[in-house]
């Protein structure tokens, strides 16, 4: 199926190739995500799904191909018929419009929960300190941590830390939020609280791209499931198709192992 250009596009990955040394991690990935759409990326480990996510916010540079978010090229600009690398400062500005939630939370351990959330809007000059703290309190309330603003990250459980990390990503009011296996580092009984927060975001119309192993969760919230293997998109479509009636042998094989 080809994508028509009439509907708006929130995120576009175009012909992305990525190597680590001689190893090819991404082998020509094309992906289009519409505003408000929830995309879940599935695939065996080493299939390139995390790399794809990191290419989207330019934590990794693609060797060939490009990514655009809300019609803006990420990490590069067009000069004639060539793409030129942007300055580091410009890339940082672009990243502040793309939320990223890590598997290991990566909260700043020396800052309180409130400062973790309020830091980025202040540092990027989007808000004053008082405003940023008000916003941080509001967001922490939204993820159910209004009473832990003064705590340090290491005083929280894993699930709480990941919820702070989500609030931190939301503080920049990003157009797209990327989740890199957000529940993989959590104890099983803590997974639910994080998924509930992500589900809340999904229903509120935020554009989300989620790499996860939670198939049940994918079926529940995904508008589209993308299955990646060997650095290529094997198949994609609504969960009812990809998860329940996979067309490809490799997808069937993968699902039979994880379900």
């Amino acid at each position, binding site marked *: 199926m080809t994508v028509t250009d009439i509907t708006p596009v929130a995120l576009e990955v175009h012909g992305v190739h990525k190597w680590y040394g001689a190893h090819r991690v991404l082998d020509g990935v094309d992906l289009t995500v519409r505003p408000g759409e929830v995309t879940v990326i599935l695939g065996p480990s080493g299939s390139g799904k995390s790399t794809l996510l990191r290419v989207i916010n330019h934590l990794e540079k693609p060797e060939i191909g490009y990514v655009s978010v809300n019609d803006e090229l990420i990490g590069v600009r067009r000069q004639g018929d060539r793409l030129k690398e942007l300055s580091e400062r410009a890339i940082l500005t672009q990243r502040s419009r793309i939320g990223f939630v890590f598997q290991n939370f990566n909260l700043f351990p020396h800052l309180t929960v409130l400062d973790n959330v309020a*830091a980025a809007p202040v*540092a*990027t000059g989007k808000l004053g300190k008082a405003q940023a703290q008000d916003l941080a309190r509001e967001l922490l309330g939204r993820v159910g941590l209004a009473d832990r603003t003064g705590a*340090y990250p290491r005083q929280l459980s894993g699930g709480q830390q990941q919820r702070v990390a989500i609030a931190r990503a939301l503080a*920049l009011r990003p157009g797209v939020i990327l989740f890199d296996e957000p529940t993989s580092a959590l104890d099983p009984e803590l997974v639910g609280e994080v998924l509930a927060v992500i589900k809340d975001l999904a229903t509120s119309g935020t554009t989300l791209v989620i790499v996860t192993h939670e198939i049940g969760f994918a079926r529940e919230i995904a508008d589209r499931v993308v299955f990646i293997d060997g650095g290529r998109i094997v198949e994609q479509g609504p969960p009812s198709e990809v998860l329940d009636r996979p067309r490809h042998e490799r997808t069937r094989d993968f699902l039979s192992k994880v379900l």
Partner: protein
Amino acid sequence: MTEPPGAAVSVTDAPPRSDTPSKPLAAQRVLPLRRPGRWIATAVVLVLAAQFVHGLATNPFYQWDRFGYWFLRPTVLDGLLITLEVAAWSAVLGLLGGILLALARLSKSPVLRAVSWTYVWALRSIPLIVVLLFLYNFSALYKTLSVGVPFGPAFFSFDESRLATDMVIAVIGLSLNEAAYAAEVVRGGILSVDQGQHEAASALGLPKGYQFRKIVFPQALRSITPNYVNQLIGLIKSTSLVFYVSLLDLFGTVQSMGATYPGDIVPLLLVATVWYLILTSAVSVVQFYVERHYARGATRSLPPTPLQKLRASLTELRARIRRETAI
């Protein structure tokens, strides 16, 4: 898992050892193991320590009255002031230089990396005293120092002999040396910060300078502090070398007074020793609180201050006494 016959002694079968009516085993405190070896070792060390202190106090060789005479003499205090001044300047300039060198060493530019590596290699190889004497004789080698295009016209020029007082020479020499060591301390600290922190900071789009100042460096300071203080204590003692570039620091003063009053050499050396002890103790106290400050968030609760520790152990002791008397 089978035990040899007769090896197992059942607790309930053991006969009561005394005539007193026995309480059930579970209700009694376990008798602590006696450790005679530890008591003997403690006694021996106490005796040796007492002997040492006694000797220190009573041996006429130390001339404690002369020590009292010299300890707060204005000349000695002037020397102490010089020591403090040289150490403070070199500590600050050395740390700043060390941070720059560490950043250069960690940069992506091979030229910066090589320059930084070479600097550290050279300055760590040359003895400090050689650096100091070199600088001392520098004004003889280069009469004027000028700022301008290399090999081209000069914008400013300084008459070096006027610029370089003994104090400036000492501070420059110590700072150059200190920077080389501080560079490695700072680099180690920066490397100790988790890679995920760099990634999170750049994923949030935090400006580069902010990432270093507010995210990476404060976390690096946790491991930089103990190492740099170690370095700093070495520096305080190295200031005694500035005597060789004719600066009268604490050691220099003591040395020259000792030449004038040969009978007082030992008490004068004691004066210097005690002052150096006081300086390093002061630095250690500051270190404790700086470390405590940067431990914020790294541990679930902050390490207790000595006062808190004392209070906690008193409470513990009181509770123990109450327990023992209750049983």
